[in-house]
């Protein structure tokens, strides 16, 4: 029964049926493998994710396919009154993904970024400024596309990308955009993040681009300014127990190991932000 539940869910695209607003339809879907580090000293990328860039006529949406699937399982499980344990058992079999979602509104020239901190969903908006790209002469082939290298300092990191004018879409992974062709590969100078083309699809059947701004409990995401968001993000990852007390109003927190020892001190999550704090 559970297996059938998952199969049906994935067949319908695994899209979350939380409170949502259709803002466009997908014309192109580019998938990227995201490889990333969680501490600067790691020699290799310990984490990977599968990211989708859905491009419509008016907007694009960049999100983790893995997180979308797990989120959909959770939403459908709750709607079907499954127990917490049952839902967690189902979710456990699927790879975790990053919860951040980035929307690019072309006409308004805006980015909308959403994130989830425990059960606090937040949203901030900013102007979608174009990176100041420096296009070089270096050329390489990526999946049969001739690509040229470009470099830009953007939101605190130096990004090295390869784009192809054979796909005349001036977009790319995350907030990277503004080149005369689709960005197929991107990495930062410090080798903390790497996006690599996984697939390119022209979507023929109707597939909505959904703007999710309410959580499962039908509560609107908390709108903050970018500075506040960055402070929340930092506190959430560097001192999670303090974050929970300050932003979620939790009075006391404790964590105990299997042997009964209480975990003392700061509780932090290994994490490197795309935009350095």
């Amino acid at each position, binding site marked *: 029964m559970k297996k059938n539940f998952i199969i049906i869910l994935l067949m319908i695209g695994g899209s979350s049926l939380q409170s949502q607003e259709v803002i466009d339809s997908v014309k192109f879907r580019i998938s990227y493998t995201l490889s990333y580090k969680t501490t600067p000293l790691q020699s290799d990328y310990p984490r990977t994710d599968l990211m989708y860039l859905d491009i419509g006529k008016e907007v694009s949406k960049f999100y983790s396919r893995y997180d979308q699937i797990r989120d959909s399982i*959770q939403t459908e499980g*709750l709607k079907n009154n499954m127990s*917490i344990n049952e*839902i*967690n058992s189902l979710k*456990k079999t699927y790879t*975790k993904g990053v919860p951040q979602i980035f929307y690019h509104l072309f006409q308004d020239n805006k980015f909308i970024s959403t994130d*989830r901190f*425990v*059960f606090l969903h937040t949203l901030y908006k900013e102007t979608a400024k174009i990176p100041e790209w420096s296009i070089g002469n270096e050329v390489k082939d990526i999946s049969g596309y001739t690509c040229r290298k470009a470099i830009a300092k953007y939101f605190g990191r130096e990004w090295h990308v390869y784009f192809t004018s054979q796909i005349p879409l001036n977009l790319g992974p995350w907030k990277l955009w503004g080149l005369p062709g689709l960005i197929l590969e991107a990495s930062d100078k410090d080798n903390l993040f790497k996006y690599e083309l996984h697939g390119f699809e022209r979507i023929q059947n109707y597939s909505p681009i959904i703007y999710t701004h309410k*959580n*499962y*409990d039908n509560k609107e995401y908390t709108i903050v300014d970018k500075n506040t968001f960055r402070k929340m993000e930092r506190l959430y990852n560097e001192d*999670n127990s303090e974050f*929970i007390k300050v932003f*979620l*109003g*939790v*009075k*006391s*927190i*404790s*964590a*105990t*190991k*299997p042997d009964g020892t209480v*975990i003392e001190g700061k*509780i*932090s*999550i290994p994490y490197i932000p795309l935009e350095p704090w």
Partner: protein
Amino acid sequence: MKRLMFICVGLFMMAGFLPAKELAVESHVECFGTTCGVTFCGDYGRDLTNAERLWIYDTAEAIFCD
């Protein structure tokens, strides 16, 4: 004047028999067991929704087990 004084004293005495209203402090502790054996407890001050429980569990897993 004497009547007024007696009324005030009477009111004062009656006030002493009124039940003291205590400040209600709601406590609601929930604990989550992770796959790596760490138990994560918090006093949330209210009943949580199942969605919130699932998100807390995910956070606890990310902190202690990933």
